[in-house]
């Protein structure tokens, strides 16, 4: 027997069939969690945001018409949820750099240069890098992650963010410039 399509499952979920919604969750939880985890380093935080995404999906599934692929619709909700959560925890890069202890700063610098690090030091470097990325504008960060790490095209990013291709290109250019400034601000210690 053929697997039910996302569109069929969404229609049933909209009619109140929780079993159909459960299938959608099982099918897409990994995709949503991995995307959210890009922005929220702590897996527990990532799971909270991923759950928010599916709560929003449950509430809004009646509005899914099945014209576009379900994944696009889902990612749109997910990117907006990430954007909202990132906005709440944004901080200044100067603050992060000022609080940067000597050793983690050194590990970060070494990791940025592509050096091989012990697991604990690599983890320190990732933590500091994640803290620094919180200084980026949430919209900049979303576009950078979707394009440069998830490998999405400009068109797909435009659909996922509810924007236009032109706006995404401009946002990506500005975001890369902001990221470059951030990378330049990391003190060189090696």
């Amino acid at each position, binding site marked *: 027997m053929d697997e039910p399509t996302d569109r069929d499952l969404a229609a049933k979920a909209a009619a109140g069939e*929780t079993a159909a919604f*459960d299938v959608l*969750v*099982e099918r897409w*939880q*990994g995709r949503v*969690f*991995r995307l959210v*985890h*890009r*922005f929220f*380093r702590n*897996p527990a935080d*990532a*799971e909270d945001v*991923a*759950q928010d995404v*599916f*709560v929003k999906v*449950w509430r809004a599934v009646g509005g899914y018409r099945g014209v576009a692929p379900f994944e696009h619709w889902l990612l749109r909700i997910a990117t907006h949820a990430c954007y909202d959560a990132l906005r709440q925890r944004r901080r200044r890069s100067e603050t992060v750099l000022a609080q940067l202890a000597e050793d983690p700063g050194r590990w*970060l610098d070494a*990791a*940025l*240069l*592509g*050096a*091989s*690090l012990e697991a604990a030091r690599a983890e320190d*470097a*990732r933590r500091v*890098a*994640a*803290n*620094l*990325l919180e200084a980026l504008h949430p919209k900049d960060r979303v576009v*950078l*992650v979707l394009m*440069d*790490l998830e*490998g999405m095209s400009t068109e797909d990013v435009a659909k996922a963010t509810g924007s236009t291709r032109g706006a995404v290109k401009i946002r990506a250019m500005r975001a*890369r410039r902001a*990221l*470059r400034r*951030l*990378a*330049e601000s*990391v003190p060189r210690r090696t």
Partner: protein
Amino acid sequence: MDCRAFLEALGRGRDAGPLPVELRQHAESCRSCGLELRTRRLLALGSHVSAEAPRAGFAGRLRARLQAEVRPAEWYDAIGRMARPAFGLAAAAALLTVGLYSAVPSGAGPDDLTFLAERDPVGSLLLSGSPIDVLAPAERAPR
């Protein structure tokens, strides 16, 4: 290694794992490529995914959360269902009052009273100040 080859090699790897020696050497000798490397790796390091999937039981926890959110909504719905007819009646009464009020001629007060006194038997009795006459049979009421 030239800058083009460096950037192509950098573009192929999206993770932030250790870099081959020749790439590191080029990044150290070329300022522009070095900055490009640091920029890309900062994003990759800070966006590192340490777990590929949520903890087991994600769907169950989500279901519990949805049920917890749905219950109050149903409770409010039930109140809404009960209150809806009452609100409907109140709205109808308000509309009727407004309608009757606007149907009465809105001229000067004394004119309205004159109209009642002359044309409406009940109104004229009320204006006469004798409630007993109002309660009396209609045929005894003065015309």
